[in-house]
């Protein structure tokens, strides 16, 4: 029997995680606290609609359209809204541009804050203890684990997302892409290049 008060009531649930979630889902739906159809709608959003292809559109537009880049610099949330991108965990967006002098990389050491409307759900590595612990102290060693070595002379600026500001890295436009349209450019922009742990692809 449960005690009158638990400091951590979650310990009353089954210890197997799949059974824990199932039990909680059963309780919440039976009590009328959660609409099962809402669960499907949430998953449809993040499994099919919202992902790094949206951030890639922003980067491709920034590479192609100097006026858009200007808007992105002055108010990134307003600029991405013109592309129909907005929402939860992307209410206050700041775009940070890589240059030959500075490479930007984003982390959330305290939890796992991430620009969901631009990149979707974060990958497991972004939420891992290893990334959260190490990205701020040894970003270059972490970059090496992603196969990225920065040129001499490029400093690293790591953005620890400790508030509701969400950072989108604008990687440098790869050489040899002068003739490409926005769709072809967007195809070169990887998720990791917009977090700063990767570099965009090069045209084949």
């Amino acid at each position: 029997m449960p005690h009158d008060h638990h400091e951590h009531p979650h310990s009353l649930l089954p210890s197997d995680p799949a059974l824990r979630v199932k039990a909680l889902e059963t309780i919440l739906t039976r009590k009328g606290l959660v609409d099962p159809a809402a669960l499907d709608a949430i998953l449809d959003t993040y499994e099919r609609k919202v992902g790094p292809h949206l951030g890639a559109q922003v980067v491709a537009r920034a590479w192609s359209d100097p006026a858009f880049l200007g808007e992105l610099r002055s108010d990134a949330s307003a600029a991405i809204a013109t592309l129909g991108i907005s929402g939860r965990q992307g209410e206050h967006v700041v775009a940070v541009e890589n240059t030959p002098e500075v490479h930007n990389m984003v982390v959330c050491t305290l939890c796992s804050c991430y620009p969901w409307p631009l990149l979707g759900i974060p990958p497991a590595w972004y939420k891992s203890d290893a990334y959260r612990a190490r990205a701020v102290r040894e970003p270059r060693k972490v970059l090496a684990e992603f196969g990225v070595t920065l040129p001499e002379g490029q400093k690293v600026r790591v953005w620890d997302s400790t508030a509701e500001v969400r950072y989108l890295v604008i990687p440098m436009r790869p050489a040899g892409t002068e003739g490409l349209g926005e769709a072809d450019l967007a195809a070169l922009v990887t998720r990791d290049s917009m977090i700063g742990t990767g570099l965009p692809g090069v045209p084949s």
Partner: protein
Amino acid sequence: MTRPHDMGGRYGDGPVLPEPQGIVPFDRDWHRSALALTLAAGGLGAWNIDTSRHARECLSPKDYARFSYYEKWIAALADLLVAKGLLSETELAAGTADPAPPHPGIFRAEAVAPALAKGSPYARDGRAAVFTIGDRVRTRLPARNALVDGGHTRLPSYAAGHVGAIVLCHGAHVFPDANAHGLGERPEPLYTVAFDAAALWGKAERAGDEVTLDLWESYLERA
């Protein structure tokens, strides 16, 4: 002063393991359910994002270390639901509940897309910023919630007591140290502050590397 989530700079965690690009697939079915349940229950409006972060931080250090990401979410969600009186410990222990009519605040399927696309902005009208870009500031030492002992704060310990320079001013934002504890939003000016990596860590991987953090005005004093 710290809790186990405050791990920036910690040694011993091993390599970071990259994954394929694109939309991240869920590893397990229960991960899908954990995410959907957490967002749907959040849609009841019974707590704010700072409360839910604090609930995860309040897991015991042992649980925080052994739980995977979505296990932390589910455990904190169960704790919050009980704390807010929405579920009972008896129901949790039974793994079921008596059927009840929908809660008046239930997050309906048709509300999902508009709510996720709208988000919840955290900028507020608030007092004018004391600091401006280029100002040198020193962070609070030790990192702590000055309103609630052991409470939620967004100043990581690795950056406590250090001097940095303001690089961005964001206007006033909801203050998590108050908002997580039902003390109101108490908006304060929010800044991005850049710190020299060599100052934070004793030595940098390369001279000139920097770490920036988003910090509220009451975490800072003029240096």
